[in-house]
């Protein structure tokens, strides 16, 4: 497959912001020693070269479909970009930072570099913005609070998952033993509170969401990640289906119970012999 590389290098050199750059050690493919390289993260692309001033790039890693994990390594402050848990023969890139703060900072940046993260975030703010504008023009005196919709809660969940690390930042199957992370204020997501003004009852939006990768459960296969390629209509449709199903089940449950009660009532309360 041909990757039109000039387009990528042009994107790198244009004036859009660099999301993160710095030295990292990268484990070679054939030569298994770690090599020091200058990495530049822009959007969902991780470029690397020998030195910051170099014009020639050694390579680029497209950061879609990978999870960022802490890993066991001879190197300190190591982490990896894992593209496949399911034996598709995809690569794992092993990287190491110079110190713990850098390791933390890079992991955080790489975790949220993917396209869908930004896409969800934008969609969420867009909703807030539109809601706000409606309120601004309505005659009701609404509290000007941030309305947190279902997408926001879902996003908040995934961000909290990113930000609070049990013993690893892995969003994948199981939990590896190994280093625990000292959470500093940067990694703590403030608790999300649903303000009373929020029209939706909190009960209707359970914290367990269909689209959040469970931290203690198996990673859903790549095809199920809501991330790649899901358009707004699909997302909402799915979300609607999911909650609709729950409501239907609850209703069926209730109806069944009601039946049961009626049946019991047919018996006389007093035994007339």
């Amino acid at each position, binding site marked *: 497959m041909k*990757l039109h590389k000039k387009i990528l290098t042009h994107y790198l050199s244009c004036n859009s912001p660099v999301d993160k750059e710095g030295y990292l050690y990268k484990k070679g493919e054939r030569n298994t020693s770690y090599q020091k390289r200058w990495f530049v993260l822009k*959007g969902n692309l991780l470029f690397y070269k020998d030195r910051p001033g170099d014009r020639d790039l050694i390579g680029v890693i497209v950061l879609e*479909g990978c999870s960022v994990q802490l890993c066991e390594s001879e190197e300190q402050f190591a982490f990896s970009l894992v593209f496949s848990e399911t034996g598709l*023969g*995809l*690569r794992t890139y092993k990287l190491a930072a110079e110190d713990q703060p850098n390791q933390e900072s890079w992991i955080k940046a790489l975790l949220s570099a993917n396209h869908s993260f930004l896409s969800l975030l934008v969609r969420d*703010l867009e909703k807030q913005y539109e809601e*706000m504008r409606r309120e601004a023009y309505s005659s009701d005196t609404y509290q000007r609070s941030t309305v947190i919709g279902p997408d926001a809660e879902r996003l908040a969940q995934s961000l909290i998952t990113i930000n609070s690390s049990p013993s690893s930042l892995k969003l994948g199957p199981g939990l590896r033993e190994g280093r625990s992370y000292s959470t500093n204020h940067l990694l703590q997501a403030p608790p999300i509170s649903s303000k009373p003004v929020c029209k939706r009852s909190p009960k209707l939006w359970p914290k367990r969401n269909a689209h959040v990768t469970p931290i203690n459960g198996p990673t859903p296969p790549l095809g199920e990640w809501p991330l790649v390629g*899901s358009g707004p209509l699909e997302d909402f449709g799915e979300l609607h289906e999911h909650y609709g199903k729950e409501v239907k089940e609850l209703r069926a449950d209730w109806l069944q119970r009601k039946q049961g009660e009626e049946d019991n009532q047919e018996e006389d309360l007093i035994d007339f012999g």
Partner: protein
Amino acid sequence: MRFNEKELVSLSRQPSQRAAELGMKGPKKGDVVKKRLVKLVVNFLFYFRTDEEEPLGALLLEQCRVEREDDQAFSIAFLDEAERKYLFECDSQEQCLEWIDSIVKASYEFMRKNLIFYRTEIHRMTGKDPLEQYGISDETRFQVNSGLQPITKEA
């Protein structure tokens, strides 16, 4: 320049926002229109020979200009080279417009700009920074003055 080809090919197989058979013509003189399965996944445009599993190529949809060329065709120009365009022929006006819309909105940088716009507006209207609830207010990539042109100056 090396790149993670296998992983990119795997990405091309993911569910896509938009995929269709279109007529596609390369930017070079002498390139002709060929039927290709064109597939939009995140900010990449993949193109396949019909019924082939592996894409022929991948175009990153950043720093590009998408233009309507005709009733049913659009073009994408990269590298600020306005004359070197990829041409895409659709089956209908509607399809053409939908493709243009999708491609523009697929760009990472386009999303970033929108994010900053909404953030700024919400902050202006409510006094609150909407990114604070996610603990990402400080990130440089979401700052208004991080080397970006202000939205209002965009054509």
